């Protein structure tokens, strides 16, 4: 059965994020206060996700390399998006992610004071990736770049849990129809199954997100339908997680969310990337 391989230090898997850095990512995201630009919200979400992954892999003796992680940006340029000591690196073992954030910011978090109120608490917020918004949306090019990286990874890890690629964008590709490049990426496989491609479309306006759909009916335009079509079906374990979180799922449910707001984005990333078979 595919998508059941163990994720262990001896058999790690990889996660690759493709981040739209086009000019429109400067636009405000959702209706929250204070208003954030989409690029800032995405950077926060990715930094938070990396932080959670490091913490997940932290054990008594340090951080276990269950995952190798990469972030590619696409806008004026297509390339790796890590800052600091990891600049220029494509797939990085999670222990290096843990030990080399570009910087650690102090942020204020409101926490429950146990008596019905909120108190401010200073927390450490490591940052690996900063927001950029400039240029077009060369989605075909970034998918081809991802294909090269994943192909190399699979040569070295032929029996891994299949790689997961998460594409985060607010719009349409400006270098052509991404279907072919997406299919070529998904055709790359380990002995446990094909590479997974999930797509997260970020909302330009405040409207209800369409989360984990199993049909393209109800999607408003050809670009949304295109992103749905290039998204992989959720593997069974991920489908179960989505179901436990209250989503209605079927065998056709795709790793796709349309018009995501901040909450939908974070839930999508959390559900889509949650491993069920760490050893």
């Amino acid at each position, binding site marked *: 059965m595919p998508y059941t391989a163990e994720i262990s230090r001896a058999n790690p898997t990889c996660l690759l994020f493709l981040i739209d850095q086009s000019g429109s990512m400067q636009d405000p995201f959702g209706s929250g206060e204070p208003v954030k630009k989409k690029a800032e919200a995405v950077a926060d979400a990715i930094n938070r996700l990396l*932080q959670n992954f490091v*913490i997940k892999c*932290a*054990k*008594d003796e340090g*951080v276990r390399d269950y995952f190798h992680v990469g972030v590619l940006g696409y806008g004026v340029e297509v390339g790796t998006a890590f800052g600091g000591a990891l600049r220029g690196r494509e797939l990085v073992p999670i222990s290096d992610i*843990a030990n080399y954030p570009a910087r650690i910011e102090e942020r204020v978090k409101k926490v429950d004071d146990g008596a019905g109120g909120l108190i401010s608490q200073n927390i450490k917020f*490591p940052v690996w990736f900063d927001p950029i918004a400039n240029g077009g949306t060369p989605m075909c090019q970034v998918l081809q770049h991802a294909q090269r990286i994943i192909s190399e990874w699979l040569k070295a890890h032929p029996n891994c849990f299949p790689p997961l690629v998460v594409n985060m964008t607010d719009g349409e590709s400006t270098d052509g129809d991404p279907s072919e490049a997406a299919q070529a990426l998904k055709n790359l496989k380990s002995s446990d199954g094909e590479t997974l491609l999930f797509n997260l479309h970020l909302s330009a306006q405040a409207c209800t997100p369409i989360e984990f759909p199993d049909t393209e009916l109800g999607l408003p335009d050809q670009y949304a339908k295109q992103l749905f079509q290039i998204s992989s079906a959720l593997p069974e374990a991920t489908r179960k997680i989505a179901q436990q979180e209250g989503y209605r799922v079927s065998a056709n449910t795709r790793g796709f969310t349309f018009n995501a707001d901040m909450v939908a984005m974070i839930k999508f990333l959390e559900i889509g990337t949650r491993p069920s078979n*760490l*050893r």
Partner: protein
Amino acid sequence: MRIEHSALFLPKRGNTAAEYEDAFSYQLQGAEVARCAIADGATESSFAKLWAELLVNAYSQDANLAPQWADLQARWSASARNSAQPLPWYAEAKLAHGGFAAFLGLEITPEKWQACALGDCCLFHLRNSELQQAFPLQTSQEFNQSPFLVSSQDTWKNIAKHLAWLENTWEEGDEFFLLSDALACWCLQQHEQHNPDLWQQLRDLNPDTFPEFIANLREQQQLRNDDVTLVHLRVHAVTS
């Protein structure tokens, strides 16, 4: 009252013996009361082995964990913090999440036995090689990847709400198996498939044969690759 006992354990395939995160403990001396406990430290928490050991050792001294709770939490936190100074940012964040473990305790007195459990470590009570009761899970379908576990950050009040209890009487020669989840799930599957040799197979295991037995089950994908612990007890009414 006299209790024969044996215990077998093995880490996950691919992990070293030091990375085994289950724990077990027994206090079987004395005619009045005997105790045994096993715990399964959760892979995704750190210092899970430490937490599992603290729990089983505390229970085998005194089955009432309520008055010991604050001390157990403090000891877990202090030992974990002493592991490195200063703690890297991720270790600090992970400690705030706490240690997690599934837990099963069994107390036997000359009149009866009583068990308490939280999570998916299981007890099997046998009489004349017939399964009398499985506790707290009764079927192999009940195992899932995310049971509620004993957390070092939780209040005792909340833990106590989730604890399951069972008690019954025992007779001369009754047996108990205490198993961590992977092997417990396999046992229930075998029992459901009416494997007549199941309990004899488990009884016959020893430290020399156990690794191969487990490796074969893992190889045949009958057993999830997880830490494995098996404690076997047989109770006798007389001391001889």
